[in-house]
């Protein structure tokens, strides 16, 4: 396939940035999207240009490091698929493909397609854990957890922290991300002692980081490569109200 790529190039956080067009010939449909960019970068290096900077690591769809907006969609056109797992057979010969970084006030661009998502780490640090000092744990079977609860906790724990939810949201909200962690831990009996402080602190941190509010648009759950459901945001709101009334 022959493709026209229009890629966001921005040298640093202070640079204005612009879309730059590249023609790429002989793209195999079996290439992953990132392998396609690898091929472009090999060419750019030999031509003496700076290659396109993008984040990636495991390339198996689980580390959450990759992520770009492809033709206006976070992680591109295929459902429940990270950018690294997106393959070029989803595109057609002659396509023009726009490639942009995550766009959100709370994710400043560092270079090209690389953004700063450290706000997510600080949200987790503010309460997304169960405080158990190493070595102090009781026997694993001392607290049975009903299977439906354990399964629901797992579904929310599959979040990979990629930031697609924020990138897809018109408000740049991190509600889906935060709700997944609150739901995972607050469902479990082990998470109960810190249930109220967890949700209060995480929501406060989320606001402090500059993420927007939720207006139930639902774009987040569509973009989420792991299918975290919109009901988790409902649960976050319930947990938050519950915590406020308990204060």
């Amino acid at each position, binding site marked *: 396939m022959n493709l026209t790529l229009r890629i966001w190039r921005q040298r640093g956080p202070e640079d204005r940035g612009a879309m730059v067009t590249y023609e790429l010939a002989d793209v*195999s449909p079996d290439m992953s999207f990132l392998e396609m960019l690898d091929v472009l970068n090999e060419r750019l290096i*030999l031509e003496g240009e700076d290659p396109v900077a993008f984040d990636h690591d495991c390339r198996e769809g*689980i580390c959450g490091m990759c992520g770009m907006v492809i033709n206006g969609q976070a992680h591109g056109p295929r459902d429940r698929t990270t950018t690294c797992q997106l393959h070029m057979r989803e595109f057609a010969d002659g396509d023009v493909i726009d490639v942009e970084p995550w766009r959100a006030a709370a994710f400043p661009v560092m270079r090209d397609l690389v953004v700063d998502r*450290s706000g997510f780490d600080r949200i987790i*640090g503010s309460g997304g854990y169960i405080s158990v000092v190493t070595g102090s744990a009781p026997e694993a079977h001392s607290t049975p957890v009903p299977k439906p609860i354990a399964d629901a906790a*797992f579904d929310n724990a599959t979040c990979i922290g990629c930031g697609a939810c924020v990138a897809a949201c018109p408000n740049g909200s991190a509600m889906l991300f935060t709700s997944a962690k609150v739901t995972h831990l607050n469902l479990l009996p082990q998470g109960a002692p810190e249930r109220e402080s967890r949700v209060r602190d995480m929501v406060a941190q989320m606001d402090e980081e500059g993420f927007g509010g939720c207006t139930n648009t639902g774009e987040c759950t569509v973009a989420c490569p792991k299918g975290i459901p919109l009901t988790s945001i409902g649960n976050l709101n319930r947990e938050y109200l519950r915590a406020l009334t308990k204060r």
Partner: protein
Amino acid sequence: MPETTSLGSGGSAYWTVGDDIADTAAPDGPIETRWDRRKFSAKLVNPANRRKHTVIVVGTGLAGGAAGATLAEQGYNVIQFCFQDSPRRAHSIAAQGGINAAKNYRNDGDSVYRLFYDTVKGGDFRARESNVYRLAQISTQIIDQCVAQGVPFAREYSGLLDTRSFGGVQVQRTFYARGQTGQQLLIGAYQALSRQIDAGAVEMHPRTEMLDLIVIDGRARGIVARDLVTGKITPYLADAVVLATGGYGNVFFLSTNAKGSNTTATWRAHRRGALFANPCYTQIHPTCIPRSGEYQGKLTLMSESLRNDGRIWVPKQKGDTRSPDQIPEAERDYYLERIYPAFGNLVPRDIASRAAKYQCDDGRGVGPGGLGVYLDFADAIKRMGEDKVREKYGNLFEMYERITGEDPYKVPMRIYPAVHYTMGGLWVDYDLQSSIPGLFVVGEANFSDHGANRLGASALMQGLADGYFVLPPMLGNYIASTKLGSVSLDDPAVTSVIGEVTGRLGRLLEINGDRTPDSFHRELGELIWDECGMGRTEAGLRKALARIPELREEFWRRVKVPGDSGELNQSLEKANRIADFLEFGELLCIDALHRAESCGGHFREESQTPDGEALRDDEHFAYAAAWEYTGGAPVLHREPLQFDYVHLAQRNYS
């Protein structure tokens, strides 16, 4: 005086032999109480004094994340590093299968002793008994810890934890969280670490890469690291340094490791005096998705649980290009079932991998380049129905379809082996301390527990055992029993390491040649895969050892790295890592050449049984090979292994 070893006729001296070494940290006596006795004899640091001590932890995977969180909880000042944008990205996250623990919840005859026995035997008798026993003991505590952290392991309807059997053992001791156990365990450790970062007990430096180790007065006292965003080179000083930087599988270029996984931290420590042990023990996983073209950037593993119901075959006829549904039953060779009737498709990883290679080398491989074999679920679908197959393997089939564009419910999967895990690593004693005092090494980065072959679901167990439970008391012992003088940033050792690091980056940028960094990595990887992959021969290894120095020379003459060092420059990061792989690859081949036996993940074609199985040579090779860096031919130090509990025996799966 070291003797010089020449290999056969016309062989040049690739290495010299130095004195034997021993692990002096492990207590002797009954194996059941060795760890208790070691902890009791260890010196303690008063809780009030811990905050006066600083520890550097490099890496945030299972071992590093667990170590950083635990040391900070105990009161030490921790400075921690990862090259990714967040500590949650480390490649432990990609582990699928599960984590072993000797809980015996199934009442199926499991015990600490059985896990110990299975691991020593599975490691083909090339691991230390003391270490492995301790690992089996600690395994049960890990499950307790993770459940308390909220790790959502699979559960039964009773609300109790589910377990399954894994990796050719006969008990159900593997705890799992669907096919994402590594992710869930890593997120558990990451959350514990995040809590300590928020509390100010861990100073976390993401997007920062360790480029060298600072050794002062013979002790590890810090690292030099590069901020990958600004390019700034900064020295960090501490009382001890912990490396949790993973394995070296990416020396093969194509592996199931993450793209960023590299050996720079361990190789730089090796160059500063840390012995590197058993690099030739590499694990090749049989069920990976084959490469589809020249542009391939990495390989993806699919859980080997697929072999429980899939049948592996190739066409009997060489070069058969018919589509699989056009090949009648009589013209298919279910070669594993034919050669190993007792175990069939479930033979251990190394045997399944080599058998696939032989079929493909013989011209019967399928798919692009003939580098693949079929893994066929047609019979399973006939036997239990498509719904049941979907329920068991749905997520794996979906992943396969996403990558290959083929529907495995209709067309047999194609699989091929790929490098997956490396058992070798920096040499450590029972305390996980390397041969440089004050330098500790945990997780896949060390060589300690898996011998020549790692069993399924044991990597997660070892990473967490090291990080949560073994390292913290042993590091405390080092700090309590060592008089550490103060060091300053003006120390000549610090400035000289900074000078070396900066000089090297500068040289990489100045070459401005005509080849990309990746083109060298690919070429090195193909060479090592061909000559030091699934099957190794003296002639092939010699060929590789002749070629690697040439390739290295070419790299330093022709590589082209655009941009400069004072900015986010991913080409520079890569080139710097590849420069180390080009040195490490040589040691890997030397170790493989010197070990003229087959064992576990190291298969020397010259050393096999009449049935083609790995043939160990316990008389000459029952030792760990610890290599000393000299700048020229490395020096081999043998650590003889003693087996008092598990008796040496040949593996047999036919």
